[in-house]
């Protein structure tokens, strides 16, 4: 059962050089209680997708088409006041770099109090107790002390825990975690992902985990959506996609992933670059970099081919094989 | 948020005027005064604070406004006489006068006051250069012993350095006076002083002259440097008296209801001293040519709006020593060209530096008009506005590198032609105020003789002064620009105002009523 579904989402940015196409029609569904990984290289549109859901895009961004269904409403068409009720309280967000996403001039306690006050009017003492509980629940030692310090006095991992505490403050149903571990050391990354998984289990939260790291997806997520140049190229259950990726891009990504026991020379690199958002793309966006490229790949966009109920990919290779 | 601010702003705008008008039960006279009072010490002050001094202190003799029968009238002295040789002067003092601090006015007080002034030796104290000693002969008789014959009665009527302060005040230092303290015999006392802003005088209830209905009990000096504000004050009735407005603005003011513009000749004039040492103005012919090039008519009629008169020699027209038949240059560019050619400058071709006080727009515009005339005879005028001090420094440091033309106002310490002629034209070893560096032994002799004669025979002295001026004018040591008028704006409901140029811009409030 989907708690959130993104349908045919198109987003453009206005720039002095013309419109930049960030999302060219994205569809996916987030099932209740699941962790969905949104993966792709830098610039493929994964962060834009995350921000579109909460309508946090910059002023020069514009949603040209699409629907984001959450419960019974379309988030793209809600009035701003209703949207504010959704943000934080129903859908919260965790950001890539906690050092900049936490306000440097307020203590952790003050920032928590602000969120609590915004969503749950109550006594200051109650808020304070809640804050301390939250800080404890994200595994920060000595919550009372932590509440009193400023962000720069915490380590990177601690900052991200505080950020997570902030996102949990109003008990949201969905959390969008935008590269929550990218800015952290590898050892800390694992701890934070553990924390996310634990919280997701304990609180039955649905999570969209935005990352460029397929390894993270493999460890953490139940579902995966692979984006390329603003389009979904492959989506499905991690258990189905990872063993048998169907899209050449996904294959490339997985091949580039270091595996235990593999040597450096085994790693494959996908040649070429992600296309610029300024171009109109008629065919498959991956065509210029694809080793299996065919003529029709450049002319027309491939449709999705289903490999199982939980696994789809958009590539002419499979269209051909299915259709004969 | 913004709306609240706007509201507060509007509110204060609206409320504030309510607070302003207050019923007055006092008879207040407001003098809108254009400059601050630099030195309130009656011994050394010799500048604009005279408008305060003249009402708080008094002199032994009083110089009457022009047109009076007598030159002098009694003030703190009721009568006086001099010895035949004019070396001993005896003054009989007014009885029953007390100082503001309660001390009695007597001969000892006069001696102590003037001795203090002479001992300090600053400001205009030099006017007593001829006094050997002062003696309190009797309780109310004071005697002056001189080393040179001099018109001491005239000297003691001076608008500076001749004020008599109480013996207690005479013991005080300069700072005491400048803190706003005073103790004179005059009709008014200093009630409060906010330096640079405002001074309030209150009537001295024990004034020896007594008081009658309609006289002012409170005098306020509003120090307002800005002529624009002064003009608005006198227009709106915020001030009863003011001066030093732009000449061009008096015309419209005279037409304004409730105002009178009182124009009388003053003892102040504007001269341009020409450098007699430096080329090319060292040539008498060049100086004469410059004198003929000056646009007297335009300056008088346009800059001074017809309110002044072209000067004839250095001595102002309404004073003894002025010669109605002396040479008066007028603008004659052909004559100027001839003279230049004769001097070896057929087409001009040289440049003259004219300096003036930077803040003085009149002096500046005099330069601008003159520059246009000089351009026609091929002479370039460089106009340089300087602080007075800098202008003077330039002049006295080295005549050979000094300015060629020095814009200069002169007024007398006490009323004698000697002030102009000695002050500006008698030879000096080191230049001081002889900034033409004029040096003519014949002239010097005439002035020396006239000076010592003036205490005994004023008519003979006057004749000598005229002879000296004839020499001076022939030598064209200066351009005599304009005899300045005193122009005072008075509100019509004030009665009794008469200008007395002997005490520049002093209003004797005691004489006024409303």
């Amino acid at each position, binding site marked *: 059962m989907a708690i959130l579904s993104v349908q045919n989402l198109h987003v453009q940015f206005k720039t002095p050089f013309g419109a930049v196409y960030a999302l060219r029609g994205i569809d996916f569904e987030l099932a209740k209680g699941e962790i969905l990984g949104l993966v792709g290289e830098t610039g493929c549109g994964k962060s834009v997708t995350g921000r579109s859901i909460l309508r946090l895009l*910059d002023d020069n961004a*514009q949603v040209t088409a699409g629907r984001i269904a959450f419960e019974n409403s379309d988030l793209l068409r809600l009035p701003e006041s209703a949207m504010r009720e959704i943000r934080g309280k129903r859908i919260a967000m965790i950001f890539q770099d906690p050092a900049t996403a936490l306000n440097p001039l307020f203590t952790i306690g003050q920032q928590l109090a602000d969120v609590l006050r915004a969503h749950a009017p109550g006594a200051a003492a109650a808020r304070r107790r809640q804050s301390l509980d939250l800080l404890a629940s994200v595994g920060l030692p000595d919550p009372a002390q932590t509440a009193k310090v400023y962000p720069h006095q915490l380590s990177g991992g601690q900052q991200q825990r505080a950020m997570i505490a902030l996102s949990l403050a109003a008990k949201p149903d969905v959390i969008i975690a935008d590269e929550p571990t990218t800015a952290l050391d590898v050892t800390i990354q694992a701890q934070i992902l553990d924390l996310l998984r634990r919280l997701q289990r304990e609180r039955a939260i649905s999570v969209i985990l935005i990352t460029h790291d397929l390894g993270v997806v493999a460890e953490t997520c139940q579902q995966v959506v692979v984006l390329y140049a603003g389009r979904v190229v492959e989506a499905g259950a991690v258990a189905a996609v990872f063993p048998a990726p169907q899209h050449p891009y996904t294959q490339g990504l997985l091949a580039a992933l270091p595996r235990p026991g593999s040597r450096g020379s085994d790693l494959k690199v996908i040649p070429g670059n992600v296309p610029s958002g300024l171009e109109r793309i008629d065919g498959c966006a991956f065509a210029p970099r694809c080793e299996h490229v065919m003529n029709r790949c450049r002319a027309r966009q491939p449709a999705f081919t289903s490999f199982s109920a939980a696994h789809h990919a958009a590539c002419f290779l499979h269209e051909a094989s299915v259709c004969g | 948020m913004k709306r609240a601010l706007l509201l507060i702003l509007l509110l204060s705008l609206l409320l504030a005027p309510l607070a302003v008008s207050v019923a007055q039960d006092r008879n207040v006279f407001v003098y809108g005064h254009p400059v601050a009072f630099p030195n309130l010490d009656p011994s050394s002050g010799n500048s604009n604070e005279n408008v305060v001094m003249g009402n708080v202190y008094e002199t032994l003799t009083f110089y009457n406004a022009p047109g009076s029968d007598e030159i002098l009238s009694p003030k703190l002295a009721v009568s006086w006489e001099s010895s035949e040789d004019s070396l001993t002067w005896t003054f009989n003092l007014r009885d029953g006068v007390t100082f503001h601090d309660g001390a009695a006015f007597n001969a000892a007080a006069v001696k102590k006051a003037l001795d203090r002034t002479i001992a300090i030796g600053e400001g205009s104290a030099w006017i007593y250069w001829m006094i050997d000693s002062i003696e309190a002969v009797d309780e109310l008789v004071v005697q002056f012993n001189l080393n040179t014959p001099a018109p001491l009665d005239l000297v003691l009527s001076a608008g500076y350095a001749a004020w008599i302060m109480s013996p207690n005040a005479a013991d005080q230092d300069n700072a005491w006076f400048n803190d706003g303290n005073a103790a004179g015999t005059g009709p008014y006392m200093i009630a409060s002083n906010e330096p640079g802003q405002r001074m309030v005088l209150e009537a001295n209830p024990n004034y020896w002259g007594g008081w009658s209905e309609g006289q002012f009990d409170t005098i306020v000096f509003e120090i307002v440097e800005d002529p624009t504000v002064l003009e608005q004050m006198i227009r709106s009735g915020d001030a009863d008296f003011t001066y030093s407005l732009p000449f061009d603005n008096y015309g419209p003011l005279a037409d304004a209801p409730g105002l009178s513009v009182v124009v009388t000749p003053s003892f102040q004039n504007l001269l341009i001293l020409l450098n007699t040492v430096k080329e090319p103005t060292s040539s008498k012919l060049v100086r004469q040519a410059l004198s003929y090039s000056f646009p007297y008519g335009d300056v008088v009629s346009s800059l001074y709006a017809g309110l002044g008169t072209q000067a004839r020699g250095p001595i102002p027209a309404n004073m003894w020593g002025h010669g109605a038949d002396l040479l008066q240059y007028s603008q004659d560019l052909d004559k100027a060209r001839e003279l230049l050619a004769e001097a070896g400058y057929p087409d001009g071709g040289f440049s003259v530096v004219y300096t003036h006080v930077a803040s003085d727009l009149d002096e500046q515009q005099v330069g601008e008009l003159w520059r246009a005339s000089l351009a026609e005879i091929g002479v370039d005028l460089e106009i340089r506005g300087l602080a007075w001090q800098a202008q003077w420094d330039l002049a006295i440091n080295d005549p050979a590198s000094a300015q060629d033309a020095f814009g200069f106002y002169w007024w007398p310490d006490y009323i004698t032609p000697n002030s102009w002629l000695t002050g500006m034209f008698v030879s000096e070893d080191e230049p001081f105020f002889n900034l033409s560096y004029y040096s003519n032994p014949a002239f010097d002799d005439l002035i020396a003789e006239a000076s010592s004669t003036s205490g005994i025979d004023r008519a003979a002295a006057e004749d000598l002064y005229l002879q000296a001026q004839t020499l001076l004018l022939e030598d064209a040591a200066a351009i005599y620009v304009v005899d300045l008028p005193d122009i005072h704006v008075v509100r019509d409901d004030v009665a009794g105002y008469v200008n007395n140029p002997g005490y520049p811009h002093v209003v004797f409030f005691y004489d006024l009523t409303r």
Partner: protein
Amino acid sequence: MKGRAVLRIEVGSSAWFLLRDRAALISMTFLILIVLSAVFAPLLTPYASQGMGAPDLAAKFEPPGIEHPFGADGLGRDQVARLMFGARRSLSMGLLVVLIAIVIGAPLGMIAGYIGGWIDEAVMRVTDVFLAFPPLLLAIAIAAALGASYINAVVAIAATWWPWYARLARAQTLSIRERAYIEAARSIGVRDRVIIRRHILPNIMTPIIVQGALDVGTAILVAAGLSFIGLGTQAPFADWGVMISDGRLFFLSGRWWMSTFPGLAIFLTAMAFNFLGDGVRVAADPRLRRMR
């Protein structure tokens, strides 16, 4: 807030760019006109000699009319001609101040930033001292010492202005010095002088020029202030500050035109420089271009 913009057709941003350009464009046109009228003043006005100070008493205090569109001053001089000739001085004062300040400040800041150490410390303390000095007071002192004149006013203002450029140049130099290619150049023994000329100077000039464009307007204002109190341009010549001062005594008594027009000239010119400077700044900084 930002979120509301999501579905709205974004006309705002393009309109803004157009508008923004238009402000800079209008400003530039205005400034070019002013400069042209100053340069070609003798050809453009029948009263060129009056522009340079010659009086015409017949027209004394003539109010604005056909003959004298902006009226005439106390010596009857045509105000349009005075404004045109005054522009020469007012504009050149502003430009000179900024130019001198850059010529003094930029090398000092660059050297301080590049060499560092006690030289840096010393230069920065000296800039602190000059920054603490109120420009007007320094100008007053200089005018008292050297006399009031056009060039002394320029010197006085520039003396309090250069520290800004020294600081800017230093900050820029510091950030560039750390870049890899500078490190590389130094490591292979390229001489400091060459590094400064080839790599640092070209890189710091853009921000300095942008700041300069923004500053000219303010410099014109300060210069006009000095002239207003008589410490700048001397008679018979006039700049706009002098003209305001000349008309001031008559302003409230009905002869409003003498101060009004030169004041407007300063106001509009300073505004034009500011708009232009803003435009240049935005154009030179893509980050700003995106933000605005």
